[in-house]
C-alpha cells in the first residue's frame, strides 16, 4: 500500500468514524465541501466569526440558535433542533420549510452538494 493510499484510507476512516460518533452518517467529501462552503456560504458565514449568519465552527452536534451573541430569529431561538447530518440536510434543502420564520433565503438544491458541505461542517470541530 502506498503512502497516498494510506492517507486516503485514513481520511475516509476519519470521516466515517466522525459520522458514526455523532449518531448520523456523514458521507460527503470534506475537501469538496470546503470548496462549496467557501464559494456559497462565506458571503454570510465564517467558521469562527458571526457575521450575517452565525459562526459555524462546532455546529455539528450543537443545539440550534445557540451561538452566543448572535441575533437569531425567534424561529431558531425556539427550535428544538440539534444539528446533525439529517437536520442540516433538511435545513439546507429548504430552510423556510424546515423552520418557518427563519431568516436564511439560501438553499442548496443538490443532495451531494449538501452532503459535502455537511461533511465539511462536521470536520470543523469546536476548539
Amino acid at each position, binding site marked *: 500500500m502506498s503512502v497516498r493510499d494510506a492517507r486516503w484510507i485514513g481520511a475516509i476512516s476519519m470521516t466515517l468514524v466522525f459520522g458514526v460518533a455523532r449518531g448520523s452518517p456523514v458521507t460527503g467529501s470534506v475537501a469538496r465541501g470546503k470548496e462549496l462552503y467557501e464559494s456559497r456560504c462565506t458571503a454570510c458565514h465564517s467558521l469562527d466569526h458571526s457575521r*450575517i449568519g452565525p459562526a459555524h465552527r462546532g455546529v455539528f452536534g450543537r443545539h440550534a440558535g445557540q451561538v452566543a451573541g448572535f441575533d437569531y430569529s425567534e424561529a431558531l431561538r425556539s427550535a428544538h433542533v440539534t444539528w446533525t447530518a439529517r437536520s442540516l440536510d433538511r435545513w439546507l434543502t429548504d430552510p423556510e420549510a424546515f423552520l418557518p420564520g427563519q431568516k436564511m433565503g439560501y438553499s442548496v438544491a443538490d443532495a451531494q452538494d449538501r452532503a459535502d458541505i455537511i461533511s465539511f461542517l462536521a470536520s470543523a470541530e469546536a476548539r
Partner: protein
Amino acid sequence: MIKHQQSSHDTSRRRLLLRGTTALSATAVALLAGVPAKAAKSATGQDASRDAAVLNTALALEHEAINAYTLGAQSKLLEKPVLAVALKFQGDHKAHRDRLVSVLKTLGATPAEEKTLAVYAQALDVEKLKSQADVLDFAAGLEHGAVNAYLGIIPSFADRPLAKLAGQLAADETEHFVVLSQALGRELPAPLSFGV
C-alpha cells in the same frame, strides 16, 4: 374531444397566469404606490414579510460590504488609483443599501441596522491584511460570495420584481468581482461559474 381538452387546458392556463399576475402585483403595486404591503400575499400565498426577511439579509450583507471597503481604505495599503476604484465600489454598495432600505420600508419592514466598524473589523478578521494584494483578494472574496448569495436567493422570492432586484445586485457584484480579479492578475471567470 382532443381539441376541447386543449382549449380547456389553455383556458385554465390563462386563468392561472392571470391569477398569478394579480397576486404577484399585490406587492409590486404597493411598491409603486409607496404604501406598506406587509400583508400582501404572493402567487404562492407566501406572506410579503418572508420576502422582507430575505431582503433584510441582503441589507446586512451590504452594510458589511460598505464597512469592508472602509476598512480597506483605512488600511493605507491601497495605491491611489486602486483606492479610487474601491471607493467607487463602496458607493455602489451604498446605493444598494439605500435601495434595499427603501424597498423594505415600502414593505412595512424594519431595515436591518448597521453595526459599528469595530464589529465588522473583528468579524472580517482584517488584521490579516498586510498588502494591497491582500486587500484586493479579501474584497474579491467578499464580492464573489455576494454574487453567489444574490443568485442563490433569487428563487426564494415570491414576488418577481424582488427577484429581479436581487439579479441586479448580483450583476453589480459580478462587475466588482471581475475588476478585482483582473487587478490581481487572475483569469476571467469561466462560463456558468457563478452561483454554483
